[in-house]
């Protein structure tokens, strides 16, 4: 039990009841024709579950990630710094969940992928997201993380040019799906974009070349990205789309199956070999260097072969919320 008076006073106890004020229809899911605007969500009402989505993402880990940390703990030798590191991680996660405290002080870049019923109005939803981000920053669920690169001034509320990062994807379904990722900055610094062929690595334009890039990147990161991380990769695409696609891989569950069998095989091989590096949690040395490797692909230009790699720290904060009529469901 935490005895620090700081925690007790700083703690926002009412947060666990965010959803108490939720309810009623967010939109009419029975709409027939998008043109009649039946799919438009009530943006003001939406702020309640959106804030709860941020709270859950910031203060609790997805269960597959936590299970992977527990497995890592079991693998390390008693008395080793690696074992202590896993133990501290697991007890800190437990404390964050119980006290509704952010898992990490770096609440990261706020990445949203939103699937919406085709034809819906998006501007009110974007505004609702911006409003709840300000609220979540005020209630210490998020750290003020948007800094002007020229003046060095922190906006103080996480809003800024390019912040938050929003992607909207139309679909034929009549549900809204909000996928939210909080991507820390320390791990972001460990990402890289390789351009194949790479003669220094002896990496050609094939999956064996991709394998070499990923191993090299994980070795370069050592413990600096808060190992053991989830390694997010995109093969192909352009400089911008490749990185975005790599990051989007962060929404995948650790135990899922890649729809592309060749990429699935490569994920497995990389997971095994990255863990042979022996970097371990926090770079202390140990048996678990990565929790997972997730690889996507995008069509490339004939001249370009990029391998984009994004390092997701062990505090892999991702969540999903779906809204259908008046039903709100959280998962992840």
């Amino acid at each position, binding site marked *: 039990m*935490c*005895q*620090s*008076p*700081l*925690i007790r*006073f*700083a703690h926002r106890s009412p947060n666990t009841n965010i959803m108490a004020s939720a309810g009623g229809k967010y939109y009419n899911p029975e709409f027939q024709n998008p043109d009649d605007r039946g799919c438009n969500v009530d943006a003001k009402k939406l702020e309640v579950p959106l804030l709860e989505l941020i709270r859950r993402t910031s203060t609790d880990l997805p269960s597959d990630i936590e299970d992977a940390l527990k497995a890592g703990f079991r693998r390390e030798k008693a008395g080793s*710094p690696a074992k*202590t*590191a896993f133990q*501290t*991680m697991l*007890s*800190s996660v437990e*404390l*964050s969940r119980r*006290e509704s*405290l*952010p*898992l*990490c*002080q*770096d*609440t990261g870049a706020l990445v949203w992928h939103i699937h919406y019923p085709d034809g819906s109005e998006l501007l009110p939803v974007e505004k609702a997201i911006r409003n709840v981000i300000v609220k979540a920053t005020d209630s*210490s669920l*998020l*750290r*003020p*993380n948007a800094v002007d690169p020229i003046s*060095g*001034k*922190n906006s*103080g509320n996480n809003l800024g040019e390019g912040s938050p990062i929003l992607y909207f994807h139309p679909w034929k379904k009549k549900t809204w799906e909000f996928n939210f990722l909080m991507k*820390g900055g*320390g791990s972001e*610094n460990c990402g890289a974009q390789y351009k194949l062929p790479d003669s220094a*690595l*002896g990496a050609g334009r094939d999956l064996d070349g991709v394998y*070499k890039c990923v*191993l*090299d990147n994980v*070795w370069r990161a*050592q*413990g*600096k*990205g*808060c190992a053991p991380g989830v390694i997010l990769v995109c093969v192909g695409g352009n400089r911008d789309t490749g990185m975005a696609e790599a990051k989007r891989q962060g929404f995948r569950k650790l135990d899922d199956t890649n729809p592309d069998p060749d990429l699935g095989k490569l994920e497995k091989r990389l997971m095994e*070999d990255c863990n*042979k*590096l*022996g*970097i*371990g949690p*926090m*770079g*202390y*040395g140990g048996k678990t260097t990565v929790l997972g490797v997730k690889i996507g692909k995008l069509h490339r230009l004939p001249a370009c072969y990029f391998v984009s790699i994004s390092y997701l*720290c*062990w505090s892999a904060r991702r969540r999903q919320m779906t809204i259908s009529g008046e039903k709100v469901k959280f998962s992840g």
Partner: protein
Amino acid sequence: MISIKLPTDEATVRSLHIGDEVLLTGVIVTARDAAHKYMVTEKPKDLDPILRNNVIYHCGPIVKKVGEKWYMVCAGPTTSIREEPFEAEVIEMYGVRGIIGKGGMGPKTLAACKEFGAVYLHATGGCAAELACAMTEVLDVKKLEFGTPEAFWVIQVKDFPCTVTMDSHGQSLHAIVEEESKKVLESLLK
């Protein structure tokens, strides 16, 4: 577990070796990117009494102000290597005995630890709630205009847990792990 009271002295620091797990009690001061640049370029004198024989923490916390008082909500370590261009000079200039951070630092800092008697202490990254629990009071804040993550937070800590990963005898656990993992990497890339 080795308990260390802050401020400390050179002899205590020299007795520490990589792999030692320590608990710090006393006053520590957060400083990250803007703060390090400021210390080295502006050389502020008012930091001297709080840093000498004390410990710097690479951390950009989540803080909350209630009335006139500041509280630490979450305060885990940030990646230390960004301060590599500045840290050796900071250790020399302010007589700092320890640096808490994550990910380790480079040869320049390791050499300064050896020459001036300092250690690098690794805190577990991402364990912001657990580490904030070891903080009992925010005593002061300086340069708040840098923004809350970048300001100097002067914090009272009790049994703050960390591991020595770079000592004052030229040993770095990070250099060892890097070297050993490089051998594995080379065999896999063949």
